[in-house]
């Protein structure tokens, strides 16, 4: 078979067989307004000029900043072995093969990924992975609806706003999604409001399929997960925990506090922060929900000669088999990134992961002290791991000006949670094991000068008035 596009003759032959005059007729069902009418692309350029232009564009990226940005994506040190092993050509596909058992290496890598994540989350079953944490969380929400035959899910407002937006998109087709508000003040400020959760669960005419909360939550705070799970279960709902995987080296895993499903973003496990991904969706559940988990599960067995072998154990609910009744219409996994996470975990080991988490927490504590001294105290009093919100007058413009001082001061919360007035002056900042004391000192002194300058400017304004 020739490797090339169809010739004009090929096309005419096919059109004649179909009894149509042009290819356009094949798209007659799509309203004209929705059809692409040419792409607005610049003229082609020679490769040399194009790469020079792209290099100039890339040079505009600021890679020199001391970064305190987390908010769902975290910078960690990745052992060189991870990227080196990923470079092997054998791994270069996002897909598990459709004749899987012939690719024992691919299946083994997925099996090991599933085993490692199962150990981290302390649940029975782990899928072969999903696009990202948001997609995995949305799938978890749908799982609860299928398993309980109920149509309403409650999600804490302290779950990542992007995940909540993805949930809302998935639930647009008739399922109901209600927010659980946050505690406004007091010692539990910034965490999921348990009294509000109880009230939402008590609406017996609208039974709840699942309750979704994050640990740590989007604001970095630790949630009363066992209590949230207990309330969910008492109402006959399932409990979904949205986790950050590195934290599981030091925090209780979802299985230990009664979560039925764990979802999360696997990026912190050896995957560099990248604008828009690709990332790694973690999804795990109890054995009772094994037939609700979308995607595929790989298992280990023995072949006819008694030798170890890996098999596609369960993928019966995928779309090529179940069509419109499939558990999900997105069963593509992220095999290469799941492999990166596996190599990362296997390379640093359980003690290494504990060190990563503990070092991040220790450096975050130093960051808290330094920022408080600079005039930016924490907003919430509750415990956190390595990320927290601080109050800074006029946070958005301070954030912008600090970039000129080579500091990326986390995330201005007003940009991502505009409907939470209590966070309008908030910066969400994080530290990990690679945050240095010098960076913390730079942040604190730059912030201190900015705040003093702002005070001076206010004084001038006062004087002028």
């Amino acid at each position, binding site marked *: 078979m020739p490797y090339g596009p169809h010739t004009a003759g090929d096309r005419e032959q096919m059109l004649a067989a179909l009894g149509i005059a042009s290819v356009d007729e094949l798209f007659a069902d799509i309203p004209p307004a929705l059809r692409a009418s040419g792409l607005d692309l610049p003229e082609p350029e020679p490769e040399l000029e194009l790469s020079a232009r792209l290099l100039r564009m890339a040079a505009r990226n600021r890679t020199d900043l001391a970064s305190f940005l987390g908010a769902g994506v975290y910078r960690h040190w990745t052992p060189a072995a991870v990227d080196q092993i990923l470079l092997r050509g054998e791994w270069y596909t996002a897909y598990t093969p459709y004749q899987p058992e012939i690719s024992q290496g691919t299946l083994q890598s997925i099996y090991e990924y599933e085993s490692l994540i199962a150990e981290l989350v302390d649940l029975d079953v782990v899928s072969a992975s999903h696009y990202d944490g948001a997609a995995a969380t949305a799938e978890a929400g749908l799982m609860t609806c299928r398993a309980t035959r109920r149509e309403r899910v409650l999600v804490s407002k302290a779950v990542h706003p992007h995940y909540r937006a993805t949930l809302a998109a998935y639930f647009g087709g008739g399922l109901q999604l209600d927010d659980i508000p946050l505690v406004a003040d007091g010692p539990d400020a910034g965490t999921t409001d348990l009294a509000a959760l109880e009230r939402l669960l008590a609406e017996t005419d609208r039974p709840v399929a699942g309750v979704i909360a994050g640990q740590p939550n989007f604001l970095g705070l630790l949630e009363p997960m066992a209590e949230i799970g207990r309330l969910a279960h008492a109402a006959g709902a399932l409990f979904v925990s949205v986790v950050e995987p590195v934290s599981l080296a030091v925090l209780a895993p979802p299985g230990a506090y009664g979560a039925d499903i764990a979802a999360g973003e696997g990026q912190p496990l050896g995957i560099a922060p990248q604008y828009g991904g690709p990332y790694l969706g973690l999804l795990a559940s109890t054995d009772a929900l094994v037939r609700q988990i979308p995607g595929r599960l790989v298992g280990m067995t023995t072949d006819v000669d008694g030798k170890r072998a890996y098999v596609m154990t369960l993928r*019966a609910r995928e779309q090529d088999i179940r069509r419109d009744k499939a558990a999900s219409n997105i069963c593509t996994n992220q095999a290469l990134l799941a492999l990166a996470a596996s190599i990362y975990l296997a390379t640093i080991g359980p003690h290494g992961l504990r060190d990563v988490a503990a070092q991040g927490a220790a450096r975050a504590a130093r960051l808290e002290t330094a920022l408080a001294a600079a005039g930016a105290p924490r907003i919430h009093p509750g415990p956190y791991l390595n990320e927290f919100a601080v109050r800074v007058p006029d946070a958005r413009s301070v954030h912008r000006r600090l970039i000129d001082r080579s500091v990326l001061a986390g995330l201005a919360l007003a940009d991502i949670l505009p409907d939470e007035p209590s966070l309008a002056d908030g910066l969400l900042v994080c530290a990990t094991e690679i945050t240095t004391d010098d960076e913390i000192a730079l942040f604190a002194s730059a912030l201190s000068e900015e705040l003093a300058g702002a005070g001076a400017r206010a004084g001038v304004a006062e004087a002028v008035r």
Partner: protein
Amino acid sequence: MVPTDLRYTKDHEWVRVDGEEATVGITEYAAGQLGDIVFVELPDVGRTLAQFAAFGVVESVKAVSDLFAPVSGEVVANNEALAGSPEHVNGDPYGEGWMIRLRLTEPGEVDELLDADAYDALIAAG
């Protein structure tokens, strides 16, 4: 020859009427076509089913298929033994492999179903 005391659907379910109740399963032919059955998902007791509505799922090593209610009714029992021993559907499809028991709400629907001769003819035609 399939059992003559049962009625059948074109989707290969059987129904055994016993007064106001009926027992439902899938035929030996269907079980044979599906291969080794590894999982059966059945509705909870109390659920109301319309005739020909999907009531569950049967999963074999090579396929997953919906189960359809031959007649309308309320589920009064499901065969919990199939959770641990789905192989009963292959080994004893008309006995231990039964799936649900319904309280009939439209008993007249039974007469619309295939009798043993008609079902035999259906599977003979492939």
